[in-house]
């Protein structure tokens, strides 16, 4: 049963979204032999769903922009829980990483003088997002993919990693299966990079696909890694709410960047009613000024629709709760209204937001150039993640690196739109570079066959359980977990509800041990769901326990029982790890002191 194929690489990258591909490209360029393992086909990862753009202070549209402004914006957006070193590196290196993509074949939209065009986005002071209409993520993943396929890189498509393999503390490989045949594979790597993305599937309403079950986070956790800021789950304010089958699918923030406005059923732009103090100076107080901002007026302040995502999402929840929502439990997002302001508005919308037009036309039978959309919050992104070193992206487990969404730190309590695409470029590159370096300096580890046999045994257990009366369906359990998280650990949280959620998670853990699947190991989604369930339970518990500890409201984390910020919690990160008894432990870790020059930048930009 424990038969498996072996693969050897200097650097093994797990995940083939933007961060994984960027890491692979970098490691290959450094001369390492690289393997990429991805759960789906190449180029299908969630990076394709990123729409609005990639944030980089290139300053092509507004020359006042520079890395310091970007750094300050990121820190403010993250309510200062960020790893400031990552925020600094990110702001400094993003422009180079974006420009470099053009040399690899990417074609961003252009300014009139032929440079990369940049657009406005929530929380960014200046137009900063390089973009291609509203399919920037597709452009990026395709560019990276089309570079990597020509390099010395082996791509293992539709493979899933079950567990990391360790030699002492050091991570030396990964053990997994291929979907096609269900065969086992041992991937040995002198260094490993996790780039597995997020945890959206822990929630019922999400913009994430089946893949986003927190695999990398759970793998790192079980291999001794630490997780930070797990309570900060980002809910994107605008997901589709109707029809039910598409609920959760993302509506890009670019709609608001292009002048789209949010209204309740009374037709009021309710965001004007609640502008947080931290942003009051930067936000327009009338509709006219907000409109001018979206049209590139450098003297205008941004409309409140472009406030940070956590805030906009909470305001939408409030409107709906207080009975001012749209018929299907959302609010209205209106871009069609710009026809009052500009000629050829219809053409303009179709050109600037082609895939949004297409998406609503096809899925909801709605023409966004004529009617407002109905939108509501959807689980979108994990701001926290695996704790890494800011410079090298190495986790607390030696030999294991992490980049992109699965790594935590850059975004603090809340991510700014556009910062994830730049995150995966900057830190994908760094992870690739340092992983290749680590691989050069360290010999391959020694695999313990017993460790591998155990992983394999656990994986096939769901086939071997006797049909008992308490047999559990993996789909049903996953559904229950999603409903629990959605209702009890969602946008608005309380102590009682989260305690209830924890109980439910414990209950689900027990039942998960009884999950049984039909059929054989060949391309069997039932089996895959059963395996993913284990990872989802780990991340759900980490989110829940971290959220319980943070007894305040900050960024994406909002507690009804502690609705305000609390200075004491502003100085710490929640860090989760497996304790000695195997139970998940959360501790508060003080945020390291920021160097004076960074502190000064933040003061200046206030």
């Amino acid at each position, binding site marked *: 049963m424990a038969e498996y194929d072996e693969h050897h690489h200097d650097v093994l990258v797990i995940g083939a979204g933007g961060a994984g591909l960027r890491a692979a490209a970098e490691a290959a360029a450094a001369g390492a032999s690289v393997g990429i393992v991805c759960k789906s086909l190449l180029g*299908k990862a969630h990076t394709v*769903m990123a729409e609005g753009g990639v944030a980089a202070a290139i300053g092509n549209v507004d020359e006042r922009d520079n890395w310091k402004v970007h750094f300050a914006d990121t820190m403010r957006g993250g309510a200062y829980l960020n790893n400031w070193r990552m925020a600094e590196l990110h702001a400094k290196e993003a422009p180079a990483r974006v420009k470099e993509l053009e040399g690899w074949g990417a*074609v961003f939209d252009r300014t009139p003088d032929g440079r990369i065009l940049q657009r406005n986005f929530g929380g960014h002071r200046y137009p900063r997002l390089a973009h291609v209409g509203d399919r920037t993520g597709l452009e990026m993943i395709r560019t990276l993919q089309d570079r990597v396929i020509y390099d010395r890189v082996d791509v293992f498509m539709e493979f899933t990693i079950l567990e990391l393999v360790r030699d002492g503390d050091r991570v030396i490989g990964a053990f997994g299966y291929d979907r096609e045949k269900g065969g086992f594979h041992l991937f040995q790597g002198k260094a490993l990079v996790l780039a597995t993305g997020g945890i959206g599937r822990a929630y019922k309403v999400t913009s994430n696909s089946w893949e986003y079950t927190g695999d990398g986070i759970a793998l790192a956790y079980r291999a001794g890694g630490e997780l930070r800021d797990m309570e900060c789950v980002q809910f994107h304010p605008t997901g589709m709410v109707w*029809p039910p089958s598409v609920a959760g699918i993302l509506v890009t923030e670019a709609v608001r960047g292009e002048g789209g406005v949010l209204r309740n059923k009374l037709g009021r732009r309710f965001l004007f009613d609640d502008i947080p103090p931290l942003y009051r100076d930067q936000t327009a107080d009338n509709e006219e000024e907000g409109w001018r901002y979206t049209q590139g007026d450098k003297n205008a302040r941004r409309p409140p629709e472009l406030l940070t995502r956590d805030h906009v999402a909470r305001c939408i929840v409030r409107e709906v709760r207080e009975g001012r929502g749209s018929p299907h439990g959302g609010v209205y997002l209106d871009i069609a209204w710009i026809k009052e302001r500009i000629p050829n508005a219809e053409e303009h919308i179709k050109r600037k937001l082609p895939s949004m037009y*297409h998406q609503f036309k096809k*899925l909801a039978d709605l023409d966004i150039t004529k009617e407002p959309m109905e939108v509501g919050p959807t689980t979108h992104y994990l701001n926290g993640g695996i704790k890494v070193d800011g410079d090298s992206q190495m986790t607390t487990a030696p030999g294991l690196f992490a980049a992109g969404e699965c790594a935590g730190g850059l975004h603090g309590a809340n991510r700014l739109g556009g910062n994830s695409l730049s995150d995966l470029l900057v830190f994908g590159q760094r992870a690739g570079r340092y992983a290749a370096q680590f691989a050069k300096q360290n010999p391959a580890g020694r695999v313990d066959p017993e460790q591998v046999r155990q992983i394999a045994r656990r994986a096939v257990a769901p086939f071997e359980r006797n049909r008992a009366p308490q047999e559990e369906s993996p789909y049903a359990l996953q559904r229950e977990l999603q409903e629990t998280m959605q209702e009890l650990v969602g946008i608005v949280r309380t102590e009682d509800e989260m305690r209830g959620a924890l109980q439910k998670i414990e209950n689900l853990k027990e039942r998960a041990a009884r999950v049984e699947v039909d059929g054989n190991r060949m391309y069997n989604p039932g089996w895959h769901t059963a395996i993913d369930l284990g990872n989802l339970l780990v991340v759900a518990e980490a989110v829940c326990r971290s959220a319980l500890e943070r007894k305040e409201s900050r960024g994406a984390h909002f507690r009804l029982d502690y609705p305000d910020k609390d200075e004491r919690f502003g100085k710490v990160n929640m860090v989760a790890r497996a304790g000695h008894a195997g139970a998940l432990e959360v501790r508060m870790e003080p945020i390291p002191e920021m160097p004076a020059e960074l502190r000064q930048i933040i003061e200046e930009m206030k």
Partner: protein
Amino acid sequence: MNSSATFRIWRGDAQAGEFRDYQAEISEGMVVLDAVHQIQARQANDLAVRWNCKAGKCGSCSAEINGYPRLMCMTRLNDLPLDRPVMIQPLHTFAVLKDLVTDVSWNFRVKKTVKRFAPRPADAPDGTWRMAQADVERIQEFRKCIECFLCQDVCHVLRNHQLMDQFAGPRNYVYAASLEMHPLDTQNRLADLKDRHGIGYCNITKCCTKVCPEEIHITDNAIIPLKERVVDEHYDPLAMLLGRLFSGSRNKANTRA
């Protein structure tokens, strides 16, 4: 609207298979993929199907619905006649792995045989280039491709004649076009297109264009313009002569071997 409908889904693997009928509950706005998921969760846990974004952006859930290649996530049930079973089959052109999942690896292998992007030296000292929006728009259309391979599936050169060894297929022509017409690119892929990638096998059925979920005008904007470029360099004596005399006419010549 709470009714049910029958879905006739192909179940099997590379060796054998059959159609099986499943009932699914229908609600408003449902797409075919929703029905497949419902069946998977309630009746057939091991029903193999690929999907990811469920919004027509990743191109994973390609299948043949009532005999026509489509994305399951973008096919609404209210656009289909539900009085007869909805027939769902895997792509015909590629070998079945299991149920609705086929082996599309050939597409990835062929893509690698298209010469990679090679830009001219940077225009500005900071390593950047200048490109006009008008010039990038043409290839931006090709770069919308989500690699769902529906065009490869429907193209009769692959589907009926299985000329995989000689013909790269519409997807790869779109890829080649996105590089060949790139304002920065310096490579020449025309000889490859003619010989290695068999663009001459295309007889312009336009089936690829019809099934493209991204509405890329594959035939008119990618394949035919490439055919015309191949004619320029390999068939048209006048153009070949002029091409030699005025080698700058495609604004690529500075790097032509």
